[in-house]
């Protein structure tokens, strides 16, 4: 086993080891527990940086060992780090320690279990992004459900049971068909290995492709979540503790979009092409719908939650543009969304810790009393709005370019126009631009709801009960700092990030 393979295993299971180490600490020693968890997460982050250092964008770091061989099913322990997964792995290992840092004073109850679940969750997420064996992927996929379920269910808000159950059932229901589909693939082609299946994808009959595509798509679409399968998300977010929301929005949702990219697009290219306009349509509905609902929210966290529906609509649109720009933009936007929405949730959490409410009406004029908070919230909100110079713009712009120039979408548009026989709306070519155009409306709406949120929290008249709020502590600033640095870095000089992911995407598209 070479060094890279060793690191892969280490990065995946280090959090689990940390979770085990927590058992050695007494439950009363809360600070010790926090430190163990934080150090574990930081070590994991360090290992992922090590992986980045030896990473070659043109080639994957891989480990592939036979694991289970039951009833003709050959399940392998097969992990790989390539251009499609590297940024998401780094995002996961970065957000976890930050989320742990954010719980320092907000989680006082059952710290040991909390940290254990949190680290288990990290292993699950990393496994999802790294697994190259369908069965192994499924195990990790389902594994992430359990700790998240408990994080919401135990440390959540008032309606935590409702939210936790809704989250669990929804995701569970979605993944059942995926399980069927991957078992079918595994038995039919005698392997669960993703690269081997991709090599054989031409042998999958078209009709089977369609069904398999849909089975996988359902699981992923719920996770993303795509409209109209999104209603579990706001409930889960509102009830989840801050750290849970950060990971949920920052990483867990990306498992859905990543799933589309890793499995649907690579295994079923024909079906992807056929379904692309429908997926793009749902994505656009999600963009506009999420934004509209977001605008109506009076709870800051719910507002950010719905904004995720809108933002992930952009990611889906980029993916199903099925071209280089669209997918590059989508992958980058997954990271951007993780950074800015993660930061937004952290900041709403900081507000909640101070005032024990997230109702927008409870605030106003905070820029005056807590200027550092006000400034940082402005930057983070603008990053989410997609202001040029910050990360969100690069992602959205690339996605819009991809959608505007998409053959898949343009072709579908032609077919629709031809089928309808509408000659009075002569818009046959460049149909992708229509998709991009509607999506761009979401950019206007994004400014509306985020600025409204900002205005209600930070501008206007100050209420008496907010007069003595404390500004951000050093710990809180340190929590936000890495995210801010990346928000600017990607916004100002995105080249290094694109260079990491571009070769893998080209390879995937067969360039």
């Amino acid at each position, binding site marked *: 086993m070479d060094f890279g393979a060793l690191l892969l295993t280490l990065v995946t299971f280090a959090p689990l080891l940390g979770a085990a180490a927590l058992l050695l600490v007494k439950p009363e020693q809360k600070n010790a527990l926090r430190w163990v968890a934080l150090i574990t997460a930081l070590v994991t982050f360090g290992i992922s940086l090590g992986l980045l250092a030896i990473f070659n964008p043109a080639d994957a770091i891989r480990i592939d060992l036979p694991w289970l061989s039951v009833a003709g099913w050959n399940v392998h322990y097969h992990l790989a780090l390539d251009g499609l997964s590297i940024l998401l792995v780094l995002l996961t290992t970065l957000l976890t320690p930050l989320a742990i840092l954010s719980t320092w004073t907000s989680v006082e109850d059952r710290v040991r279990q909390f940290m254990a679940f949190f680290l288990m969750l990290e292993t699950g997420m990393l496994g999802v992004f790294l697994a190259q064996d369908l069965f192994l992927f499924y195990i990790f996929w389902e594994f992430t459900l359990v700790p998240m379920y*408990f994080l919401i269910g*135990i440390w959540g808000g008032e309606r935590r049971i409702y939210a936790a*159950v809704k989250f*669990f*059932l929804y995701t*569970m229901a979605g993944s*059942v068909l995926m399980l*069927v589909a991957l078992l*079918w693939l595994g038995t039919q082609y005698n392997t669960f290995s993703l690269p081997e299946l991709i090599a054989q994808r031409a042998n999958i009959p078209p009709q089977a492709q369609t069904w398999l595509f849909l089975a996988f798509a359902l699981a992923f679409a719920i996770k993303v979540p795509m409209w*109209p399968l999104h*209603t579990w998300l706001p409930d889960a977010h509102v009830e989840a503790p801050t750290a849970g929301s950060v990971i949920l929005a920052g990483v867990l949702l990306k498992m859905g979009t990543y799933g589309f990219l890793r499995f649907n697009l690579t295994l079923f290219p024909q079906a992807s092409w056929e379904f692309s306009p429908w997926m793009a349509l749902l994505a656009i509905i999600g963009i506009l719908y999420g934004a*509209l*609902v977001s*605008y*109506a*929210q009076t709870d800051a966290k719910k507002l950010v939650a719905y904004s995720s529906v809108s933002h992930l609509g952009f990611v889906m649109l980029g993916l199903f543009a099925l071209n*280089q*720009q669209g997918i*590059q933009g989508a992958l980058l936007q997954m990271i951007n969304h993780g950074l800015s929405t993660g930061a937004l949730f952290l900041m709403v959490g900081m507000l909640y810790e101070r005032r024990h409410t997230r109702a927008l009406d409870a605030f106003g004029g905070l*820029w*005056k009393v807590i200027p550092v908070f006000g*400034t940082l919230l402005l930057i983070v909100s*603008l990053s989410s709005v997609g*202001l*040029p*110079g910050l990360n969100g*713009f*690069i992602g959205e*712009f*690339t996605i*819009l*370019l991809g959608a*505007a*120039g998409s053959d898949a979408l343009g072709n579908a548009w032609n077919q629709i126009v031809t089928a309808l026989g509408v000659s009075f709306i*002569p*818009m046959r*070519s*460049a*149909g992708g*631009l*229509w998709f*991009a*155009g509607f999506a*761009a*409306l979401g*950019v*206007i709406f994004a*400014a*509306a709801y985020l*600025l*409204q949120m900002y*205005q209600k929290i*930070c*501008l*206007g*008249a*100050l209420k008496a009960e907010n007069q003595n709020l404390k500004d951000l502590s050093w710990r809180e600033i340190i929590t936000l700092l890495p995210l801010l640095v990346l928000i600017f870095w990607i916004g100002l000089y*995105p*080249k290094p990030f*694109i260079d990491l992911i571009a070769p893998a995407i080209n390879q995937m598209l067969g360039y």
Partner: protein
Amino acid sequence: MTTETLIWLLPLPPLAAFALIVLFTNRSKALSHSIAVAAALLSWLGSMAVFIQAIGVEHLGEHPFHSVLEWLPVGDKPFEIGVLVDPLSAVTLFFVGWTVLMIFIYSVGYHNFGQPAGDHDHPGLPPHGATVHGHTVPSVEPMYSRFFAFIALFAFGMYTLVVSDNLLTLFVGWEIMGLCSYLLIGFWFAKPSARAAAIKAFMTTRVGDVFMLMGVAYLYAATGTLSFREIFFNEEVLKHLAETPALGGFLGFSAAGLIGVLLFIGTIGKSAQWPLHVWLPDAMEGPTPVSAMIHAATMVSAGVYMVIRMFPLLSAGWEEGGPLTPAMTAMAFIGALTALFAATIALAQNDIKRVLAYSTISQLGYMIAALGIGAYVAAAFHLVTHAFFKALLFLGSGSVIHGVEHGVLHTGNHKVDPQDMFNMGGLRKKMPVTFWTFLIGGFALSGFPFVTAGFWSKDEILADAFANNLPVFLVLALSALLTAFYTMRQITLTFLGEPRTKEAAHAQETPWTMTLPLVVLSVFAIGYGWVGIPEGLTGGAIPNWFHEFVAGTLPEHLPVLEFNILPMLFSIVIALTGLGCGYYVYRNVKAGDPDPLQKPLGMVYDWLKNKYYFDQLYDRIFIQPSIWVSEVFTTLWVDRGLIDGILHGVARISYSVGGILRNDFDLPVINQFIGDGSAKVVRSAGFELRKVQTGRIQQYMVAAVVFAVGALAFFLLR
């Protein structure tokens, strides 16, 4: 250092100033403004150096200063960003450098630097004055440093926009300015009106921006580049764009036509053209230097700059004298309409800054209309002169307000609105420098013949319209008449006659930091016109340097318009008539008198006063319905009602099915035979987590596995 390096460096000092002030010096007012002014000075120096180099280069249009850097790898071809200084950006740099520097210096005095802190001042509200030895004196702005940080960031955005060699970085600068505009309009954020105005400005311009972004995306999709030179200096590309039907012939547009219209919508938002003009008057809620810099000299001009920059694309397929392209038609129509429409509203405004705001909208309409009829150089010329004289007027109005505020502090009567011109009068004696410079600015705006810059630039537009497009000429001429009229109304009400209030009688001239910029800007408000005097008038004795130089920006040389004395006579008559009438009507307004126009105009006056009710209309047809769709339709009906309703329905059905299974199958069958023993083990293991167990999860997991196995069996055995 090469000129290219220098150009790269131009936007950086203000950015560094922004960072330094925010991070380190925000507690020291003197240090903060010194850093900001020094940064503006550095950028100004650099701009002048570049400008001087640029005018020394022969055929700068063909050999501009240009340098690129790889930035965002998109697709096969990496996205390059770069800097470019050609004649158009050179003259723009010139006026941007001057106005920005002057406004930075002015801000020091405007925010009462050196005065004591206010008795009851709060960050987020304008200063209310401090008591010293029993007298009330102006107090220093509580967020002084923050103001300089924001305007420095703004200057960075503007310089970035001007030196960009491509639409993408231009758009970046464009949006950074939009952000600063938002922050600075809402600078006194505790005032609800300022807060609302800030959001209105951001959202309205954002509507335009999104269309512009679509234009950018389409242009990129069609040509694979956003670099100005690669598009404009490539005849094949332009020809191709002009001949390809857009989206297969959408509304009969060519690709170039559609892209042009989309980009122009961006300008409509940024330069506050009808129908997206509503944000600019409200933007006057911001401090006056902001109104001068952002909402007169630079940002709103950037909208016009962009369309001038994109002219080769907007006019692709157009030939001198031929039919206009769709984008040009749109510009001619909207520009002329806006010029007249805003000028009429300005007639009935009493707030000294709002008059100027509408006047700005109107003058920007002039430039747009000029470009629409193909008067490329005239549009650029008016852009430059207008930046000078309008910044001068805004700064002058700020000085006036400041002076009257002084009077307000003196009398202690805070009910007197220091911005209402009907509360002024006779200020010429109290504030001589402000008066004379304001007079120069106002005359330039009215196009007072021969001495003012505004005369020459406006005349060039009118002459072009006279020769090429008579309807546009008539509309613009009428607007020019109104402009002269309301400008003289403003000057008369503010400075002439006798003071109408005690406050005006106690007004005071402002400090040198405020009057010096006025003097400098008034030099340009006069002198800058002389570089663009039509050669036909002087018989070539004075060369029309501006036309010569700026026309070189375009790959094809525009012919100089043949000189015609008729439109020039028109402009002279118009300006003098307007000025004369303005003085005549308003010369005798006494305290408490209504506007002399109110009676003769009747209903129309109410319409004008209320800006044709556009705010109310937009509220009714856009804002209220959007809020309804958002709050009621999507959130309540679809999200919570329909989607969650279905979910809960499904849950209820499965729950009752589960109940039946449990009561009629689980309990009697399973529990009787299997289970109780093993259940105990499970129960103790799950003790910790018991509180969250609902019992349903296990059922569903079992159901999921059963379902999966069943489905798999179905597929395999089929």
